[in-house]
């Protein structure tokens, strides 16, 4: 039943967008002029392309996120039963957790967390 509900939610989301866009397309007024489709940049034509090589410091964080998020994924199943596992569960996960914290400390030390 739950998976069916998942499908229902997905279909609802798509239907919502499609329906709204359909209404908009059906009754909205339209006009044409040569400048309408061009990119907006405070009223000045864009210089060159926007899709060009662009140095970003953002990707470093994406990679860091990937690393930590995967580790969080591993932690979730453990978290549900940690109460039953008791001290054993705690100690065994501490090794894993230690690696996680070491990773963060290493990234910090290396300056990966600094904005460049």
């Amino acid at each position, binding site marked *: 039943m739950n998976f069916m509900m998942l499908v229902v939610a997905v279909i609802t989301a798509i239907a919502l967008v499609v329906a709204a866009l359909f209404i908009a397309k059906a009754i*909205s007024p339209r006009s044409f*002029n040569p400048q*309408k489709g061009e990119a907006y940049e405070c009223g000045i*034509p864009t210089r060159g392309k926007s899709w060009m090589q662009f140095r970003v410091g953002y990707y470093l964080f994406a990679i860091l996120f990937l690393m930590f998020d995967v580790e969080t994924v591993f932690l979730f199943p453990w978290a549900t039963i940690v109460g039953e596992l008791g001290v054993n569960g705690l100690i065994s996960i501490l090794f894993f957790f230690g690696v996680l914290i070491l990773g963060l400390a290493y990234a910090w030390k290396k300056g990966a967390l600094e904005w460049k």
Partner: protein
Amino acid sequence: MEIKKPKIKSMQYEDFQDNEYLEKMVAELNAEGTNVLLGKLDDLINWGRSNSLWPLTFATSCCGIEFMALGAARYDMARFGFEVARASPRQADMIMVCGTITDRMAPVLKRLYDQMPDPKYVVAVGGCAVSGGPFKKSYHVVNGVDQIMPVDVYIPGCPPRPEAFYYGMMQLQRKVKLEKFFGGVNRKEKEEK
């Protein structure tokens, strides 16, 4: 079909100054008669449109400060639902030309206007935007923004008081309330020759 009077909450129809213009407009629009159903739908659409006029944040000079005062606590344009000032023309419904438009600015303004989605409205605020104002004789000033794009409402003043802004905006609301959208009147997908 009889001429309908655009209603504005808390201000009588008779209190507005230029009703003749609007009545003429209604008479022209209704010349061929209106389908009742489509007429009602038009009313509904116009209700939504007239009550949700989002301005583009566009100000060149003095009138811009009064426009800010309009949004601020004492005058509070949020009461009318005007407060959602969008910085991107793609999401704005009307452009309030607050201040002088110079020769260098004119193509920029035109481009901004062109990039707005339909339906779009223009309010010329202040003497400069209406006619060039005190700078009419300058070599670098456009004498009235209506030279470069169609204007719906003119608000005179240098700068206009916030009350005048309101009057102008309510006039625009009244104008919007009279429009007809159904029947493909507003579709111009092809380039005009």
